[in-house]
């Protein structure tokens, strides 16, 4: 089984760890597959504008540099640790109301997707790029400020676009995903080194981006585990 984490932030957005150090941290711990998913924040409201001002978001301007850095590091990670690193982003639609907020992981992204597009546009653009769409922390979390409930509240409309839902994120488990029988994965939402020890996904597939994506989409041979020292 491949030990995987598909939700990792670096200093490209609000993570506290530089990209290279994040790669080493996961490589040294024996991970097989990770995705770097820094925030792409909506700039169409005051919260988003502040995030842009504080440089807590990947932007259209630095997206190419971001992807190039991940690709360089992916090569190093493969040569040194045989760890597959997939580029991604976390589309971050933040609003004052948690009911209106949503975070979406786009795994294996190739071109920039602005967070201010509407949901259908984002999902369709992700599909066009053959990227994976994951709904992040979709239900109530232990930290109320991280709640993003929009996708769950509108699941009847959007579930068809979503390849998998986070059934566990860091220390939280969302049993509603299981009850609805939605496809699932578990991630750390890594921002600090201590977040290494959190929920993870185990996949029974080959160590290639295509196989990993297919395995998550089919949601067969997927298990979750809490990674502890």
């Amino acid at each position: 089984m491949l030990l995987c984490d598909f939700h990792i932030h670096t200093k490209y957005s609000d993570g506290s760890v530089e990209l290279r150090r994040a790669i080493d941290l996961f490589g040294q711990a024996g991970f097989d597959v990770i995705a770097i998913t820094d925030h792409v924040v909506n700039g169409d409201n005051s919260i988003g504008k502040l995030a842009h001002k504080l440089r807590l978001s990947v932007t259209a301007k630095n997206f190419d540099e971001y992807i190039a850095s991940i690709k360089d590091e992916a090569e190093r990670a493969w040569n040194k640790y045989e760890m597959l690193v997939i580029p991604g982003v976390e589309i971050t639609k933040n609003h004052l109301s948690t009911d209106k907020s949503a975070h979406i992981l786009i795994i294996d992204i190739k071109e920039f997707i602005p967070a201010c597009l509407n949901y259908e546009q984002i999902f369709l653009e992700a599909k066009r790029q053959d990227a994976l769409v994951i709904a992040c922390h979709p239900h109530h979390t232990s930290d109320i400020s991280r709640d993003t409930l929009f996708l769950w509240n509108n699941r009847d409309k959007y579930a068809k676009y979503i390849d998998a839902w986070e059934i566990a994120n860091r220390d939280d488990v969302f049993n509603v995903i299981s009850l609805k029988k939605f496809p699932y994965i578990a991630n750390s939402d890594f921002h600090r080194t201590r977040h290494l020890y959190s929920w993870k996904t185990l996949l029974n597939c080959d160590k290639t981006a295509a196989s990993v994506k297919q395995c998550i989409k089919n949601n067969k041979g997927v298990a979750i585990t809490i990674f502890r020292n």
Partner: protein
Amino acid sequence: MEIFYFFAALALLGLAAYVLQIWAVRSCLMRKESCSPQSTIANQRLPEWHPVSILKPLKGLDDNLFDNLASFCTLDYPQYEIIFSLQDWNDPAHKVARKIKDKYPDKDISIIVERCNTGLNPKINNLLTAYKYSKYPYILISDSNVMVEDGYLKAIFRHMQNSDVGLVSNVIRGVRSRSIGSILENLHMNSFIVGSVCFLDRFLKMPCVVGKSMLMKKSDLEEIGGFEAVKDVLAEDYVIGKKMQKRGKKVILSNHLINNVNEYWGLKKFINRHTRWGKLRWKLGGAKYFSELLGNPVFLSCLPLIFCEATTAVLAFAVIVSLIKIIGDFYIGRITNADLNPIFYTLSPLKDLIIGIFWFIPLFSNKIVWRGNKYIIGKDTILTEYKNNRDASWRVRFVSMIRERFA
């Protein structure tokens, strides 16, 4: 003011002891070992490189684990095997060990997963399994948080050319600090620990073996009772060194520096380790433990701030002592080629204050928590299981507390 003079005198004594420690480190590292990698013993004959079994007890993820383990796969040594020994299939270190084995298919690497509950010391339990599967007459015990250079094994094995030598250990430096806990840990490793080990070795000729690297001959280890003899001992490294010396074998401190990687430690881990080590030294040294306080001049110089008025003279004295300590630590860092950022040395007095405060704990508590297990530590660091009788009546708890205290 008398109190101030008293503590000032103690602090000055401490500074003098510290200068001796620096001297010991310097002379230890500058010592031209007849067994240095570049030379053979008195250039008389070529060294014989006997095959060595490297025993690596693994438990959990240490910082930099992959690179630490990988550094043993590129050793410049003719014949050796590496045995990664674990107690649990679900240990996260198991996956890292497997990756290392896959990365170096041409190396003689075994991964042994076998539960062993022979003793109370979990490291010894792990080593007992590894030892059982080792095939060569020499064993090297190496902790998983140690990273070495290619010439390491040759550098230490040269000492074994002398048949009087029973054990070779190394001078250790803490490297890679990326968090406050690891900065304090590496500052302490690179000042107090390295200073004390070298001081005991150079001036008192006392073996102070640190278990991060121990090279021995199997036959010598068996003569002192093998690992079974220390299965319930917390300071197994120190006790093995003592037993070797008692049997007339030399215990050598090699000046080949090895790296102890401490990257992402929290403050709690730092305090926990040094409280544990303090309890260990208190149980081993008894009254000698009090001399350790003398080795902490910063703490001593700050005590008058509590016991008498904080006058300019008192403050100035504490600041001057702290500055001298910073310079001293920086100097040791330079001669040991430590990779600490020079700015971090300014935290040295803070570290000494924390160590000074926690120095008292061993006098009042003999309970330790090590790798998730709770023990009571007795004389000569003999462990007994800690029984939590929180639910028992206060009389039972009181009696068991008294028993534990005198264990």
